[in-house]
């Protein structure tokens, strides 16, 4: 009301009064409004992600399958999990594949970022081309790579044959996983690249120049000056890619289905098979809890940093 009058008659001092009054009145009215604004997001998260995540912990202590009353069995599911060689195979495969993907992407993405930094002509177009794979669905990506890597007839497999390199991805487990890594790197390198590229561009020119005056070679300037400066970005890229690479599913599933003989299964595929093919909810839940803990463990430094930032009110 006062605000309305102040607007109409447009008097400076009265305006300030109005804003003061408004500020005093704010707390009660605002909190209700804020909660209302937060509600949709929180509802989605609690109903679809947080509750299932808690429920799966409970489920992992039950003997359960679809359409059957769960019964408490203590740690039996975890015991069965530890005794399952397919699980350990999946753990090992995931470990190997995730590390190859994350560090392969890091090295490749960093190289591309450095390469592109000094390019002036057509930079926008080149970046557009580099991020194109990021826009493609896993299944289309698999279509492309399977076409190129089709034994004997694919253009890339013929090329490799010519070089004396054979990647028998349809029969050898290691080769199937190697191709899955290659595709995952192809697919997600744009993410790593963009983060590192943005960080490299934000390195002040002066530090470079100062190092150059001090007689540092380009190689030294890069490793001793720039890499330490962009280290936070590198760590963020590694962390995020770890968290997302653990979820790897489509690349392996569409190439090998986890076969032959479950030898190329990664954790996500193990979980999928135990749940939806063998209907072994207890075992799958125990494996799910392991994945959950692993992901949160990796995410811990990031979450810790963000929590600190939030507490500071940044």
């Amino acid at each position: 009301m006062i605000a309305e009058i102040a607007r109409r008659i447009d008097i400076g001092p009265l305006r300030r009064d109005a804003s003061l009054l408004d500020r005093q009145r704010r707390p009660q009215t605002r909190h209700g409004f804020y909660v209302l604004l937060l509600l949709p997001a929180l509802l989605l998260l609690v109903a679809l992600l947080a509750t299932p995540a808690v429920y799966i912990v409970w489920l992992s202590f039950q003997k359960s399958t679809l359409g059957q009353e769960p019964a408490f069995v203590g740690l039996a599911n975890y015991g069965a999990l530890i005794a399952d060689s397919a699980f350990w195979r999946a753990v090992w495969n995931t470990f190997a594949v995730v590390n190859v993907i994350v560090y392969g992407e890091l090295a490749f993405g960093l190289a591309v970022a450095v390469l592109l930094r000094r390019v002036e002509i057509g930079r926008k177009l080149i970046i557009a081309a580099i991020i194109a794979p990021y826009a493609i669905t896993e299944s289309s990506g698999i279509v492309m790579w399977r076409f190129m890597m089709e034994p004997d007839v694919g253009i890339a497999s013929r090329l490799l044959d010519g070089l004396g390199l054979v990647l028998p991805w349809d029969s050898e487990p290691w080769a199937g996983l190697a191709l899955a890594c290659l595709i995952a790197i192809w697919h997600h390198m744009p993410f790593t690249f963009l983060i590192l590229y943005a960080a490299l561009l934000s390195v002040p020119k002066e530090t470079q120049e100062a190092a150059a005056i001090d007689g540092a070679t380009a190689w030294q300037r890069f490793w001793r000056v720039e890499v330490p400066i962009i280290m936070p970005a590198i760590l963020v890229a590694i962390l995020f890619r770890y968290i997302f690479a653990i979820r790897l599913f489509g690349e392996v599933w569409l190439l090998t289905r986890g076969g032959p003989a479950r030898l190329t299964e990664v954790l996500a595929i193990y979980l999928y098979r135990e749940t939806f093919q063998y209907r072994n909810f207890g075992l799958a839940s125990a494996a799910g809890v392991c994945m959950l803990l692993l992901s949160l463990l990796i995410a811990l430094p990031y979450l810790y940093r963000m929590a600190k930032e939030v507490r500071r009110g940044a």
Partner: protein
Amino acid sequence: MVHDARLSTRVLRAAGILAVLTWSLAPILLVVTSAFKEPRQIFEVPFRVFFIPTAENFETLARLNPEFFSGLRNSLIVTVFTVLLTLCASFGAGYVYARTKETAYKVSAVFMLVVRMLPPIVVTVPLFPVVNWLALNDSHLILILLYAAFYVSLGAWMMRSFVAQIPIELEEAAAIDGATLWQVLRLVVLPLAAQGLVALTLFVVVFAWNEYVFAMIFTMNNARTAPVVIGEMLSTAEGVQWGAVFAAATIQLVPVVLIVLALQRFLIAGLTAGAVKS
């Protein structure tokens, strides 16, 4: 001498760029061009660079896999509504996070981050029976809700950093002029945060249009999306119909690649706001 060194680094750099471009684009271009080849030319040796384009593969696709086109329609529906839901929920939450200092809000902001770190496949185990029981299986709704749930945290944090850049004085001025909270949000904050909304839209479109695991698990026929249909076309017992698969992959990737190329600067803005901000 110096000039020579420069020239050689330049040549090296150009070669490097060319190699990267080949790596990124060759798989895409090969499949898109092959989609327009006659089936018998697809695996021809030597590789055929020039050919007369034909729509034969697209006709085969329409004849053999009509479900691909309903898959496209499902993908479109799911993507559009996921974007709408994610934008609304993220904008509201992001605004609150940018403008509050109380502990409860901060806790919920961190909660969002924690939840985002959960691997999606894990939540499918407990969700599947519930979704079945609610008869939401094979519906667009379940995919929309799940996709929004996984992207609303990123969205809220992105919007938080975009809203934080808007001077609070603008809101106060509008409030003095008699605008309600709702009007301030809609008429002052929303337009100024538009860039963030576009960046977020881009992320959600790419994700929802391409998502594979949830769609494979939670849909059968009615809501089956295009990526799932393509996945199925790759695993037929009679051997892969490469021509039809190429046609499908081409149709599926064109819209989203175009959007990403057109809005790529927002992609970088979103990444820097969402991930490397510190």
